[in-house]
């Protein structure tokens, strides 16, 4: 398994604890790791170089914040820089004053244009618009048929042209007429995939652009694209003046560094991401998430998603607050455990946690024992309400009673109480100390139902 970047940096900076300032010397190792991480995420070589320089400048001489280790601080700076480049705000789509507006979808072969066209149409409907589709992909076998099938599936009109018509210019002309006839306010044009060096086909796009005067030309790019992303994006932009980017196949495990490259070379905003094959697996681009993912912290997001699926949000917020207010009782602990178990194998979840690098080694490497979880729940169940709210009440006699009631030993009860107390201590550190930095902020946003979840770790 790959060591996460934050783990690596933690290692790099182990020796630097106590150093007050970030200096070129103590940052070098960290920047080297970050460089590798960015390159492995497929960010273009030159873009990485620029970024590292920017980070160096920004970080140099900064005081290391009390709450952060130098490693965390560098990650924080890089993350901020990435978010800045990727765009602080979500880019909006532009529409014409006089309908219909035209949106052209362009890109390389196999990048996901047709699927994205259908997804965007569906998304536009949700925004109250009335799109109509047209495919001018006269080259790939059954490409027009593909869009027609999708249109039927999502119940959005499509202009398929007069029988036998296979000239792009005629197809879009027909779509325009049909749009005004049927009162559709947005025409989505799916174009054939092409190579940026295919002069003939690029000329075809020039022509379509001139004919359609689109308000948006969206460059559809595969998140798995490597270093070549800069070339294709640059060429498409130079030729056509793209107005935005759709990053597809983000439901996979590609780190998506191409986003950064494309954004850098075109200056155009990322607008949407594709997250699956279904027509509604499509959302506006989030710079923050993309930045985390590029840095190899993307699994945090999948954790959040998993958690939010399984967890009652209100409940989770309440817990969060309790944690912050230091009112987290054993009863809450038990409820958390029950929810956590709904999430599946604990070890997997723990691996996803960003803070794991800071955990004591025993905790990080501890095998999570599901039986132990059951035991903990049983022990807490055997306590009285008062004991759960105030574990200080738990004297020897009470502990013995609880052990008998839960079919465990006094040793088990002792362990649990110790763990609970350690967890609260850790939590205080996380929400207070560390929370000053990125991790804390993210955790607050995440509305985690559990602190950093090390229930059931024992031994």
């Amino acid at each position, binding site marked *: 398994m790959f060591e996460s970047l934050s783990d690596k940096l933690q290692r790099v900076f182990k020796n630097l604890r106590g150093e007050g300032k970030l200096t070129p010397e103590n940052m070098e190792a960290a920047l080297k790791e970050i460089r*590798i991480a960015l*390159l492995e995420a497929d960010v273009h070589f030159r873009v990485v170089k620029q970024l590292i320089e920017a980070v160096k400048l920004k970080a140099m001489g900064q005081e290391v914040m009390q709450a952060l280790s130098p490693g965390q601080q560098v990650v924080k700076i890089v993350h901020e820089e990435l978010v800045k480049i990727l765009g602080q705000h979500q880019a909006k789509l532009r529409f014409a004053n006089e309908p219909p507006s035209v949106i052209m979808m362009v890109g*390389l*072969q196999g990048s996901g244009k047709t699927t994205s066209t259908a997804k965007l149409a569906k998304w536009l409907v949700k925004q109250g618009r009335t799109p109509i589709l047209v495919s001018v992909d006269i080259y790939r076998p*059954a490409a027009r048929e593909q*869009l027609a099938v999708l249109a039927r599936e999502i119940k959005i009109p499509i202009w398929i042209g007069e029988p036998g018509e296979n000239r792009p210019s005629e197809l879009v002309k027909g779509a325009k007429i049909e749009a005004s006839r049927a009162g559709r306010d947005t025409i989505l044009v799916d174009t054939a995939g092409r190579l940026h060096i295919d002069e003939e086909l690029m000329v075809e796009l020039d022509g379509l652009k001139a004919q359609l005067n689109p308000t948006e030309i969206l460059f559809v790019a*595969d998140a798995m694209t490597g270093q070549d992303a800069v070339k*294709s994006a640059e060429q498409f932009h130079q030729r056509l003046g793209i107005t935005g980017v759709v990053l597809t196949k983000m*439901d996979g495990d*590609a780190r998506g560094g191409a986003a950064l490259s494309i954004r850098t070379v075109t200056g155009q905003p990322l607008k949407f991401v594709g997250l699956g094959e279904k027509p509604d697996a499509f959302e506006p681009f989030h710079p923050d998430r993309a930045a985390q993912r590029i840095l190899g912290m993307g699994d945090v997001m999948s954790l959040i998603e998993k958690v939010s699926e399984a967890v009652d949000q209100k409940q989770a917020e309440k817990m969060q607050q309790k944690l912050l207010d230091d009112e987290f009782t054993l009863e809450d602990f038990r409820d958390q455990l029950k929810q956590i178990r709904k999430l599946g194998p604990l070890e997997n979840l723990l691996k996803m946690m960003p803070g794991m690098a800071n955990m004591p080694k025993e905790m990080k490497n501890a095998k999570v024992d599901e039986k132990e979880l059951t035991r903990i729940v049983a022990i807490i169940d055997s306590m009285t309400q008062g004991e759960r709210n105030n574990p200080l009440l738990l004297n020897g006699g009470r502990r013995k009673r609880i052990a008998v009631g839960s079919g465990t030993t006094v040793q088990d009860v002792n362990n649990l109480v110790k763990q609970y107390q350690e967890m609260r201590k850790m939590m205080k550190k996380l929400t207070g100390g560390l929370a000053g930095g990125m991790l804390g902020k993210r955790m607050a946003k995440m509305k985690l139902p559990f602190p950093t979840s090390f229930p059931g770790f024992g031994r």
Partner: protein
Amino acid sequence: MSSLLDRLKAGIAKTRAGLVDKIEDTLKGRKEIDSDLLDELEYALITADVGVRTVTEILEDVRQRVDRKLIGDATEIKALIRRHLVDVLEATERPIVKPAAPPRVVLIVGVNGAGKTTTIGKLAARLKADGQSVLLCAADTFRAAAIEQLEVWGQRNQIDVIRQQQGSDPSAVVFDALQAAKARAVDVVIVDTAGRLHTKENLMAELEKMRRTTQRVIPDAPHEVLLVMDGTTGQNGLEQARKFTESTGVTGIVLTKLDGTAKGGVVVAIARELNLPIRYIGVGEQIDDLLPFDAEKFVASLFEN
């Protein structure tokens, strides 16, 4: 017909133009080996998607030899890198598995949009030209109009396509196709599968099931499982290859879209780590735009003038 080597050379002209010219540019006029030179080499290889780890290891090797004064000048660095790449790619070469009895079953897998269906169209043409009878199996029952797309390729090649309705069980189509192939004594069956991301466990399980289905009809099938990979793929390619190999026993790679500016350097890492041979390269959308991959010739043409 032009010689194989010529075709290969023409096909990968772009690849050449990228990787090799970059290295050659770098080396041109340089006598002294300094760290700038190594930096430029690193740039060339990394921007060809070879991957930072692989590149670092290659360059480390070079650096050591430079330190030990085993390399006199820049030309030798070039030779060293070339030899290294040939070694890595050649080590994966292995003979094509012959079936105990026909048909030979070829399963085509890969992520969405990699070029699977197009590759099948081209591969069928090659096999037919080679005198083999071919049957296509439309087991992408998921993507809209995928079956129609394969049928167009069937028509172009004048070969039959076994199909069912969109949405039907892909394994059932595989079963039908193999039965038909046996009955008709066809030489090769090529199975088109729906594109899927290697991270989707349920979809990977579906592929496994298709693989098992082939075995049920023909015990030593599938004889070949080709992972089709887009030449523009970056470092994620390694994970793709790893996961598809785990669940479907990939036996080789087809690298597509090398007619663009992408280099497909990630196959070097794949060869090193997974020992998977690259069988073919795709160099365009026309029916004859598929070329056999040969490590020696590939790297040789990369470095030829």
